[in-house]
């Protein structure tokens, strides 16, 4: 999340490192698969290897581009709104199977609204409950999508 253009070579190095790590995982996994090429001579482990080599090449190219200053500087970003949204997503992930879809999603809604400048958390939560309830009604009941229900869902829509 660096704003300064000074940090650019570092960004390139981090991206290149990520690509190389991805390649390493692919290669490591491929090494555990038996070579079973059949008539083709190309088995299930070979395409991941090919992709891994591609990633390694791109990783090197990214380092070169970074050193030459070819990686564009990211636009300035504020951390707080981003963290609010991540908090909302995290809360939904943890609470979903405990309190049900409606409450967990209402929390996500409220946190996102907060990230976008809605200061009134109670209002955000209330609107979130209404929206999530409507979504639950339509998708779980009418379109038979399986959304996890909690106490609130049971109370309103029945078992």
């Amino acid at each position, binding site marked *: 999340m660096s704003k300064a253009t000074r940090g650019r070579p570092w960004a390139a190095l981090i*991206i290149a490192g990520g*690509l190389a790590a*991805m*390649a390493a*995982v*692919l290669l490591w*996994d491929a090494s555990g698969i038996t070579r079973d*090429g*059949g*008539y*083709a001579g*190309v*088995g*299930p*482990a070979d*395409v*991941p290897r090919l*992709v*891994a080599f*591609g*990633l390694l090449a*791109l990783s090197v190219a990214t380092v070169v*581009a970074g050193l030459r200053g*070819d*990686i*564009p500087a990211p*636009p*300035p*970003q504020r951390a707080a*709104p*981003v963290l*609010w*949204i*991540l908090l909302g*997503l*995290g809360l939904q*992930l943890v609470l*979903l*199977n405990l309190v049900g*879809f409606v409450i967990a*999603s209402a929390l*996500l*809604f*409220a946190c*996102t*609204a907060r*990230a*976008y400048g*809605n200061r009134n958390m109670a209002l*955000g939560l209330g*609107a979130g409950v209404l*929206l*999530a309830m409507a*979504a639950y009604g339509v*998708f779980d009941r009418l*379109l*038979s*999508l*399986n*959304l996890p229900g909690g106490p609130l869902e049971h109370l309103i829509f029945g078992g």
Partner: protein
Amino acid sequence: MDSLWLLLGGLSVALDPMILLYALIGVTLGTAVGVLPGIGPALTVALLLPATYGLDPAGSLIMFAGIYYGGMYGGSTTSILLNTPGESASIVTAIEGNKMAKAGRGGPALATAAIGSFVAGLIATLLLAFLAPFVAKLALTLGPRDYFALMVLAFITVSAAFGDSTLRGLTSLFVGLALACVGIDQLTGAARLDFGVPQLLDGIEVTTLAVAMFAIGEALFVAGAATGPALLNATGSVRMTAADWARSWKAWLRGTAIGFPIGSMPAGGADIASFLSYATEKKMSRHPEEFGHGAIEGVAGPESANNAAAAGTLVPLLTLGLPTTATAAIMLAGFQQFGLQPGPLLFITNAELVWGLIASLLIANVMLVVLNLPLVGLWVRLLLIPRYWLYGGILVFATLGTIGISPSAVELGMLILFGVLGYGMRLYGYPIAPVVVGLILGPMAEQQLRRALAISQGDWTTLVATPISAGLLSIAALFLVVPLLLRLRGRGKVLTQLGGDSD
């Protein structure tokens, strides 16, 4: 002609009241998401995929296609009034369209965009109807190696040929290809990259990835950025003057002529078509001095081009099973969800569905012009929804789709992870579409490659042994190398250069 009869047969499917309803829902939703910045047709189709699981396949696919067409119509509205394109294919519309709106000519700008979209959509859909059966017949003669070459070409055009960096495009593509390796190998059944997590054996869901990258990545990015621009209320009357008509109609036809081939050859999507059309209009115009200050051709051409390209994209999608844009990739996932494999055989086994879909697009076009011309004021109101409600809602629906697929922490965790990845990619200017296309086309390309090699008993020269495969691979190589050289000579010139070649 045969196509005509089949199309008439398709119309009888399309005029079924339920199918009409699906089409209407599709185009309405499509217009709405086109108008709203931050959600595009790709994301909307991805969001709706899980929701349509239990619905009628024909109706759902018609709805998806309606969303695609509608997104192209609606995108122009935001470009013109807000100077923030609702989706990427309307970026050039903003250049002239917003200038027109600022000069109080927003109404005619909206009108020429909508009528141009209608003309282009109509012509391009008819072209699709007449062209598709031929391509499907041709496709029946293609072997695995030709398909592999075709997919390589699609990979290159989606990632490297256009856009501002070959390196970043290819990086995105390879990230998608790496993710595509996760799951059970379709030919031997070997488990790859599952890390002992059972949910990973099925591979990474296209919808999860697409929703995460488009919705969550975008929501994080927009939240982190500074606040958006203010709405221009200067719509005025949508009536066009005689001079507007005279200047528009040629641009509509030229836009269609550019957009349809670009969309239908695996050569990139609607955004490229709209850029090329803009460059052409600028060159052909009798009022070049007006460009940059609100020239109506600069709105009419690109808006027709992006609609024609959207229709063109359906040619490789339906006849070859080859998606060339993110939206098409997700529509392919939609076909697969209903157990349908787009490709030449679809025209034989599911002829009624295919022709119903094509005929519905003609009807959808009529619906769209009605929705967009008299009702444009209504759509503009959508922009008055505070952004915090809008994005809150987007995130709830984004997670809803994933939870609907599987309410497990693994699936939601992946959604968040890919969302953060999408955010990072946006920060550093990496394109998103190649990841999605890589994920869905990767396993198909791998299968075709291994089949081709199995037929030739491991001889790699088989890949260039037919004129078609050799030709396609050479074009792919050209698409990789030429833009690279052009960019070395000076970036930004690339598109103008290509624009100059196309007329």
